[in-house]
């Protein structure tokens, strides 16, 4: 639009006026800043100079001692050990490269570490010490001390570092600590100053990370006199910080060690839960790794060995791994059917070896079929057709609800990394995640714990404990914090008819103690400790029609990755349940063969609180068990670690 010169002139004048007003305000502010600067730097300069001198009496943070971690009997799992390190001060060293070269002739130095130190030196002020070698032996420290005159700027220092004296046994539960990284800091909104201390260790994984707030403690402060270059001359006084809280776990370190040793060589998980309190007595996953390696900073070669192992040592299979529960899920289907009134104790189903659902045949694991089957027989001999049949009558939603009631498909609150929720699917779930309708075939698969159904070994143990007690037992990992007992996970009675539970328990008893039960060979014959259980074998592959026609290939003939997972859940003693044990052996083959013996051995170890007498075993097994006990006993003796000896 066209503007008249008049309005334009007026607008221009007003703009000039306002610009001058705003400019004037800006200059007034600049003047104010100058005045403030004058006030601080000229009028009050002496006072601030004094403060600056006092600042030479510097406040330094004292890193708090990290809380220790014990097992339920007070055996140490995570502790703080003195560690010696060698530091260099760039300013005093003069020619850093030359000094480092001299030092490397004296003691072994790590190339990576040196590179890191050089990079750090570039970032920090020249008078700040930079670590050259961490966790140095006492011998090497002495060498450095003796040669001190030839090594300007190099000094030995002592500090505390985390140490895990049980090595592999607790790697998955407790996790490990490591120095604060930039990535850690970037995740925090307002990091505490103590985290800025070089190489301050914080929890990275597992309990150490989840309970960081309890374990870390509060930093103390000390007043030290420093000279003009910042070197500490003497300490004036100190205010002690608050050490982190000591945590006592519910785990029995000896049992954990036994379980770890018993599973050695397999890719497996075993969970022992106390039926009365929900205490996790053992929660072991094999293979494992040495967490101390991570505290020191793991080498690339070691790390690659861990990540490339097809048995996945870094994964915590007990809570993080989820598996189709297979036949161990049948108790839930049975309970859902009993509660819905679909089946009674006497009702039977005929098993010809398969059930036709629509046009598709769902096979029983036993090709010839089981004949007439009632509830007890169906669990005892693990008939699949019985469950296809009753599940179709009950419907998936009731089965899924029952699974959740028993702790499957829900996330249990445990202070460990990556606790998986598993999956107890229902119609709504499939609709929302897959956008497809639930099919009857899905129900048939779910009824025997296949298809979408997923559970972690820990969840299976919780399920078994709940079946054993009829209460909603919840798992507990931390027994006490700084001596203060934490609430137990005994739980309220479940809203399930006790008579129905009793029926299922009785059938589980038969699984282990009836001559025709699938786990009869892995029974306990000590009368006061009779065990009840359920085997499971979960498929990791589909059996094709052609395969079925040619005769299903035996597990042993398949490559390891394609073999079935072996599962076993159990509780004992039958009349007064004390422990529930869940075992999953990845690609182990059949549950009765690969998982049940492990569960029995671990169960007996727990019940006898140590090596059980041979009388608890069936006569036929005793010789073999004796051998095994001897071998494991040898394995568990404190192992002298070659790298540990020279690392003081």
């Amino acid at each position, binding site marked *: 639009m066209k503007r008249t010169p008049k309005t334009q002139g007026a*607008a221009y004048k007003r703009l000039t006026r*306002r610009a001058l007003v*705003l400019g004037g305000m800006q200059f007034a502010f*600049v003047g104010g800043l100058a005045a403030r*600067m004058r006030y*601080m730097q000229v009028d009050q300069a002496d006072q601030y100079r004094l403060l600056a001198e006092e600042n030479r009496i510097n406040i330094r943070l004292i890193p708090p001692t990290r809380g220790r971690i014990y097992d339920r009997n007070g055996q140490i799992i995570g502790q703080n050990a003195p560690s010696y390190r060698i530091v260099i001060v760039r300013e005093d060293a003069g020619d850093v490269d030359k000094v480092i070269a001299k030092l490397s002739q004296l003691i072994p130095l790590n190339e990576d570490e040196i590179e890191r130190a050089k990079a750090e030196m570039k970032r920090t002020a020249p008078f700040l010490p930079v670590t050259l070698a961490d966790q140095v032996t006492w011998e090497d420290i002495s060498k450095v001390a003796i040669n001190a005159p030839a090594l300007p700027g190099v000094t030995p220092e002592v500090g505390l570092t985390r140490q895990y004296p049980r090595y592999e046994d607790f790697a998955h539960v407790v996790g490990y600590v490591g120095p604060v990284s930039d990535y850690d800091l970037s995740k925090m*909104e307002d990091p505490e100053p103590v985290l*800025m201390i070089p190489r301050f260790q914080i929890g990275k994984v597992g309990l150490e990370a989840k309970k960081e707030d309890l374990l870390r403690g509060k930093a103390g402060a000390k007043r030290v006199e420093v000279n003009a270059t910042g070197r500490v001359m003497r300490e004036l006084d100190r205010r002690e910080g608050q050490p982190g809280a000591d945590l006592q776990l519910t785990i029995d370190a000896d049992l954990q060690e036994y379980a770890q040793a018993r599973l050695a060589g397999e890719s497996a998980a075993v969970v022992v839960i106390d039926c009365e309190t929900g205490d996790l007595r053992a929660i072991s996953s094999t293979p494992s790794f040495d967490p101390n390696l991570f505290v020191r900073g793991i080498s690339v070669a070691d790390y690659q060995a861990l990540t490339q192992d097809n048995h996945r040592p870094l994964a915590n299979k007990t809570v993080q791994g989820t598996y189709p529960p297979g036949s161990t899920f049948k108790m839930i289907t049975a309970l859902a059917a009993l509660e819905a009134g679909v089946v009674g104790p006497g009702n039977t189903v005929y098993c010809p070896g398969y059930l036709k659902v629509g046009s598709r045949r769902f096979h029983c694991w036993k090709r010839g079929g089981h004949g007439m089957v009632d509830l007890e027989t169906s669990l005892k001999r693990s008939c699949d057709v019985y469950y296809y049949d009753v599940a179709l009558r009950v419907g998936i939603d009731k089965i899924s609800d029952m699974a959740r009631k028993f702790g499957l498909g829900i996330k249990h609150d445990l202070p460990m990394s990556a606790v998986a929720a598993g999956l107890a699917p229902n119609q709504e779930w499939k609709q929302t995640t897959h956008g497809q309708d639930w099919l009857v075939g899905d129900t048939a698969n779910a009824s025997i714990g296949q298809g979408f159904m997923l559970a972690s070994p820990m969840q299976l143990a919780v399920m078994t404990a709940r079946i054993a007690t009829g209460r909603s037992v919840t798992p507990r990992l931390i027994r006490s914090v700084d001596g203060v007992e934490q609430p137990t996970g005994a739980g309220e009675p479940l809203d399930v008819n006790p008579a129905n539970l009793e029926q299922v328990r009785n059938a589980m008893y038969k699984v282990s103690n009836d001559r025709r039960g699938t786990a009869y060979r892995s029974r306990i014959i000590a009368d006061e400790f009779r065990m009840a259980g359920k085997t499971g074998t979960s498929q990791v592959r589909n059996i094709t029609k052609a395969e079925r026609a040619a005769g299903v290939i035996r597990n042993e003939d398949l490559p390891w990755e394609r073999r079935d997972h072996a599962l076993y859940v159990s509780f004992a003693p039958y009349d007064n349940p004390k422990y529930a044990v869940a075992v999953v052996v990845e690609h182990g083959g059949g549950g009765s063969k690969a998982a049940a013996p492990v569960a029995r051995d671990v169960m007996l170890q727990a019940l006898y609180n140590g090596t059980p007498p041979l009388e608890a075993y069936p006569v036929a097994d005793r010789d073999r068990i004796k051998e095994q006990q001897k071998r494991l006993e040898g394995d568990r003796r404190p192992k002298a670690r070659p790298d540990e000896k020279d690392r003081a």
Partner: protein
Amino acid sequence: MSYLEYAVKTTPTGIRKVLYMNWPLTLLLISVASAGFLMLYSVAGGSWSPWAEPQMERFGLGLTVMFIVALVPIWFWRNMSVVAYLVSLGLLLFVELFGTIGMGAQRWIDLGFMRLQPSELAKVTLVMLLAAYYDWLPSYKTSRPLWVLIPVVLILIPTFMVLRQPDLGTAILLLAAGGGLMFLAGVHWAYFAAVIAAGVGLVSTVFKSRGTDWQLLKDYQFRRIDTFLDPSTDPLGAGYHITQSKIALGSGGWNGRGFMQGTQSRLNFLPEKHTDFIFTTLAEEFGFVGGTTLLLLYGLILIFCLVTALSTKDRYSSLVTLGISLNFFLFFAVNMSMVMGLAPVVGVPLPMVSYGGSAMLVLMAAFGIVQSAHIHRPR
């Protein structure tokens, strides 16, 4: 069509444009940036890495950008104002959705060679948009309620997006710069009086909200205000920065302790000594003389911007120049107030001196627009 297009023939063309640049402004920018290089060299303990060298490279890039922007006629930038504004809103939305999480806030986009903070960009594009708006709006409409409401909305959109990041400091700067531009354009002063009254009311509400369910600021923001009001309450935690900063500044005295001799900035734990708190080091090492010299340089930059703004008859050029200089003023005023203990720690860098690429690049591009307004001014 504005007056500008009629006067095109009188503006210089080709290489002669360079001669008509606002050279004093260019030289001032170079000297301020050089002071920054020196300080970055000093806080690194007498080393060009890790800060001084990349900063010099970025300043070189910034200068190039400024020259390129300067040579493009100002009317092009006026026509681009709306687009620029929309682009910066888009980038703000992008970081909101996909931004890298850094220091507790999603603020930047990683471009590979640098991190772009869209909120920095928004400060300039907002000024451009408002200047274009008031250039277009007939002046008799300026104070009518509807025509006042529109720029208010235009200011509040980016402000809220920045506040959500959450970046309180930048949000306040955006509000102040936008309000300042409206004031320059001639909006009736009664509006400003009303807003200030409402602002006082709002601040008291914010403080009343503390500890209730509808708490308006995050806990750490309240804590920053607390420690600002009384740094001694938390000498090891958040108050540490302010206390240390004041001691370092005050102990500089008249002449300072000398280059590379500042003990305080070396001995303490200040994690941001190369960014937000760099003025502390300068004031400690060069004292009152050094500090006021920098202040003087900043003041001269404002004056030369004012000269450009008042010597052009093009309304867009005047407004955009004044808006950019106001932005620049707010930057250093807030930062200096912060290190002198006059304002809470809000995380605003010292312009052209603090280490940081995106703030400087955006600022140099903005000065390019000022230069363009100067070169292409109708005379």
